[in-house]
């Protein structure tokens, strides 16, 4: 117990945590402004007719009301950044961000999941206890030290992202075929001077192997004092290269700046002092209120619980049918499986009516956006969701034609889907024989998915 006590509750400088608060708040602010300015709220959350929600009942607000959660997020980011009404801001940010992400699987990205988790953690961390508006408002005692776990849990979270991303890369597609990097890199064949290298196999292999070793080892190199500076250089180079090559938005910058949490207070003191001189008056603080800590026991149990979940979620695929992970995508999300798949699919849906013996071929674009069609066509749970939606649309509906109208009373939804995975020839993904509205989407293996042929 003494060791646990020391490991988790030893007092350490608050500066890395304060630095993280400022960095993460700024990134959230930039991220949400970017999202709003690109018109994505309209495109992704207002225009679609149908949403591939994660949880039943969590649906978009109607029309322009969808801007509200984004504005709340913006407000919350400002609150985090300045440490103003900090806990309320963190809760507001966490709820609005997570709500937005739960609306449509089409837009799921691992780094959005990462943001949700960090926002969740920030709710409980005393990141506003120093150099914050809350101090200035005389509401909060200024602290110079915090228990070590408050910083450690953020380090843990970052290490989990890297390490499991590395574990996920240990597969034959990535290591033995350099896929999907081979496909993505060859697209740069036209770059002046270096384009020829991008079309070669060896560069794809070099990137794949380097990426795998990098992800697996970087958390440890960042933890060690001796190697930290060099490791951070690698962090910068690695993420800038990915930022240049792949359309992954702000994620590289989130990682580059968040990783600074691994640096000690001496590092952060320098740049925080620089900013502090700008806000000199803010520093006046009379102690009025102290932060109320949870008991060590509660903190300890919560940490154990959180860590267990974070370790178990990415590993869950190994309890099922891991060899088909990329094909069926069971256990794919929330597992830091980043940049591993290049899937291209073509899904045709059919509505069969038993009574009239009619078959209707569905034009996906009549119901979904281009983005949604693209994502849905390769992901079984979304295919099932769309099939259920089509059932609701067509059940007891009247089809008008110039010759006659007929009513569909007992529709059966079928899909014929072909998918090409990581450069393999396309193969059957779902056969037209299954009546999808009758299938249940559970954690058990889906018999309605065609078996995977790994041949190239």
């Amino acid at each position, binding site marked *: 117990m003494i060791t646990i006590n020391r490991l988790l509750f030893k007092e350490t400088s608050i500066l890395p945590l304060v630095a993280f608060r400022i960095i993460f708040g700024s990134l959230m602010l930039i991220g949400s402004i970017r999202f709003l300015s690109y018109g994505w709220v309209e495109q992704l959350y207002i225009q679609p007719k149908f949403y591939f929600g994660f949880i039943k009942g969590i649906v978009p607000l109607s029309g322009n009301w969808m801007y509200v959660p984004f504005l709340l997020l913006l407000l919350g980011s400002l609150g985090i950044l300045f440490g103003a009404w900090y806990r309320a801001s963190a809760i507001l940010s966490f709820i609005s961000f997570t709500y937005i992400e739960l609306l449509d699987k089409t837009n799921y990205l691992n*780094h959005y999941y990462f943001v949700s988790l960090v926002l969740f953690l920030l709710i409980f961390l005393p990141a506003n206890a120093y150099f914050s508006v809350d101090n200035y408002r005389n509401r909060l005692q200024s602290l110079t030290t915090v228990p070590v776990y408050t910083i450690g849990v953020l380090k843990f979270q970052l290490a989990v992202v890297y390490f499991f991303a590395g574990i996920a890369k240990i597969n034959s597609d990535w290591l033995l075929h350099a896929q999907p990097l081979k496909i993505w890199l060859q697209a740069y064949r036209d770059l002046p001077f270096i384009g020829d290298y991008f079309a070669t196999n060896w560069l794809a292999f*070099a990137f794949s192997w380097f990426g795998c070793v990098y992800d*697996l080892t970087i958390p440890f190199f960042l933890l060690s004092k001796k190697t930290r500076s060099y490791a951070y250089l690698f962090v910068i180079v690695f993420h800038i290269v990915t930022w240049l090559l792949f*359309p992954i*938005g702000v*994620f590289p910058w989130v990682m580059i700046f968040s990783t600074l949490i691994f640096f000690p207070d001496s590092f952060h003191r320098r740049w925080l002092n620089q900013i502090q001189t700008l806000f000199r008056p803010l520093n006046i603080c009379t102690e009025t209120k102290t932060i109320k800590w949870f008991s060590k026991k509660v903190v300890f149990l919560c940490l154990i619980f959180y860590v267990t979940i974070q370790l178990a979620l990415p590993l869950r695929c190994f309890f099922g049918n891991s060899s088909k992970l990329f094909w069926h995508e069971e256990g794919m999300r929330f597992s830091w*499986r980043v940049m591993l798949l290049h899937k291209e699919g073509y899904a045709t849906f059919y509505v069969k009516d038993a009574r009239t013996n009619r078959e*209707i071929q569905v034009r996906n674009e009549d119901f979904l956006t281009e983005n949604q069609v693209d994502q849905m066509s390769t992901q079984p749970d979304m295919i099932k969701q769309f099939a259920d939606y089509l059932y609701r649309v067509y059940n007891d509906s009247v089809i008008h034609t110039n010759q006659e109208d007929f009513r569909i009373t007992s529709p059966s939804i079928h899909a014929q889907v072909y998918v090409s995975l990581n450069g393999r020839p396309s193969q059957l993904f779902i056969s037209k024989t299954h009546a999808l509205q009758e299938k249940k989407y559970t954690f058990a293996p889906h018999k309605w998915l065609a078996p995977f042929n790994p041949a190239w």
Partner: protein
Amino acid sequence: MRSYSWIFGMLLLLVSCKDKKTNNQEDTFKKTELLTHLADNYILPEYSNLQSKVNALIASWSSFENQPTEVQFDTLKNQWKSAYIRFQFVKMFDFGPGMNQNLTMTLGTFPTDSVTIEANIQSGSYNLSSISNYDAIGFPALDYLLFKSNAYQEITTSLARKKYIREVVLKMKNEIDQTVSEWTTYRNSFVDGSSNSSTSPFSLLVNNYIRDYEVLKWTKLGYPLGANTGSTKNPNYLEARYSGIGKDLLSANLLALQNVYLGKGSNGTNGKGFNDYLIALGKNTTASTLTSNWNLFNQQCKALNSNLEEALTNETQQMIDLYNAIHNNTIALKTDMVGAFGVLITYSDNDGD
């Protein structure tokens, strides 16, 4: 374990370096070559072909308007027909200058809405640029106006009708002239745009190519066959139903897609096309499947009755066969070809999961 991995990695690198020599074509294929060839030998000449055809259409309209004769009317109709066919060769380029003018929509939206057209003519007040008039303008509107029963009589006796036709034709000319002139400057950025981001010209080209293919499948065959209405045929969805040139338009559209795929220029010059890129990527099976499918479609299309409306009634199965063949080919086109190119269709962030 890690040290072993490194040794293994080194070995792999050696092996793959050796690979490189045998796989030389892969290293040397450039998308810029494909885009340059396509722009200079296909897109620009085809747009100016369309431009001169539409100019000829205008000229014959003017002569007819000044001095209406049956002979002049036939010339006019023939000019319309050859311009409409030419349009099939460029309608897939619905990006850049073509999209600025929204050419694909304004010139080719069908079935045309005869009720709106008549209402417009009747009232005399209309804005041809408004979205609600998209199905009352362009080639399909002229199909109705020039080929409906008693058309000659109606046009020659109605000033309002003449005015409407003149404005429709002038609008078309205006938009094509704009597109042609914009393409002369857009050409250079098009030729350079070879990255795989969703807004690069190569991605725009591929995505619009696939879209045109799907539009062909649905609008020229699927809707008339009733693919989405439980096989109840809808002859009024047929393209150019009044003139009955739907089959010419279908085969021209297929030919255009084939030419771009193979890299065949408008005057027959051969250059780099999607086919060559696929071969450079080692996707020979996909390349040969697609090449032979294009020929198959041509044959199937040729074998159909010259009037698609008659084919729809009497050769339903042959038409369904062609539709199914085109539909099944989408798998090779959309999953294998686009998958190999690594082109992204999404405009938002993507972390490949």
